[in-house]
């Protein structure tokens, strides 16, 4: 059954994509400021909790988790999962254009494959309807 998404639900999916990538990028910046942490000095990780970068990263990731679970409450996991992978594409773009990191050719190929993969599911139905479950009306 073709199951189209309301604009509000697309917005939740966008939050799933952006939340994971922006949260990760914030954590990465915070950890870069902190410097390397060795296995013998794990208590240094508690210092990370004082960094505003890390704190905002954690808050954004909590928002991501909330949107992820909201999405799973009305869409199949085989639909939502590729969307989360699209976050990797955004991370790559962010690290290239915001953090000015070097992005190799094989990573660009990875980006292209994910974009194609997400394209496959984005055009399909978002949810499997099982017999006995009411099909909800889309306003």
């Amino acid at each position, binding site marked *: 059954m073709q199951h189209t998404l309301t604009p509000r639900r697309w917005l939740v999916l966008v939050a799933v994509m952006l939340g994971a990538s922006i949260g990760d990028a914030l954590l990465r910046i915070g950890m870069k400021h902190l410097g390397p942490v060795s296995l013998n000095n794990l208590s240094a990780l508690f210092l990370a909790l004082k960094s505003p970068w890390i704190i905002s990263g954690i808050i954004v990731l909590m928002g991501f988790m909330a949107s992820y679970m*909201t999405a*799973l*409450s009305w869409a199949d996991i085989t639909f939502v999962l590729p969307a989360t992978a699209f976050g990797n594409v955004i991370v*790559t773009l962010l690290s290239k254009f915001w953090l000015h990191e070097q992005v190799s050719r094989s990573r660009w190929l990875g980006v292209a494959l*994910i974009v194609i993969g997400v394209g496959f599911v984005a055009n399909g139905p978002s949810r499997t309807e099982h017999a006995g479950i009411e099909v909800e009306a889309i306003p």
Partner: protein
Amino acid sequence: MSPATLHTWTTIFAVVLTATAGDILIAGGMRKLGDLDDIRAKSGLLGAIKAVLSSGMFLIGITCMALSFFSLLFALSDADLSLIAPATNSLTFITTTAAAKFFLKENVDKRRWLAALFVCAGVALLAR
């Protein structure tokens, strides 16, 4: 296969297995719960949080996710991130897709399998 590679792949298998179980249980729990937007509209944000936290499937799923995280740390203690990250990330896509078809009875058509394969390969390339 040397003991070291066997050990590495056993830990990778453990990470993938627990991550897949966690994803499937959380997805199953959310599906059982019904539309979270509706729940929030009816009983507010706290009501929605309470509904999620009282789902047994969700709690077991989160426990699996925590186990997966610790297995990942364990795997990283003796193998390179450049092997562990792409292997666990991309394998989880395939196993979750298969498990969603088998356990959640999701309609995984050709399009979704292709998506899983492409995304799996893409993530493996990105994570290196």
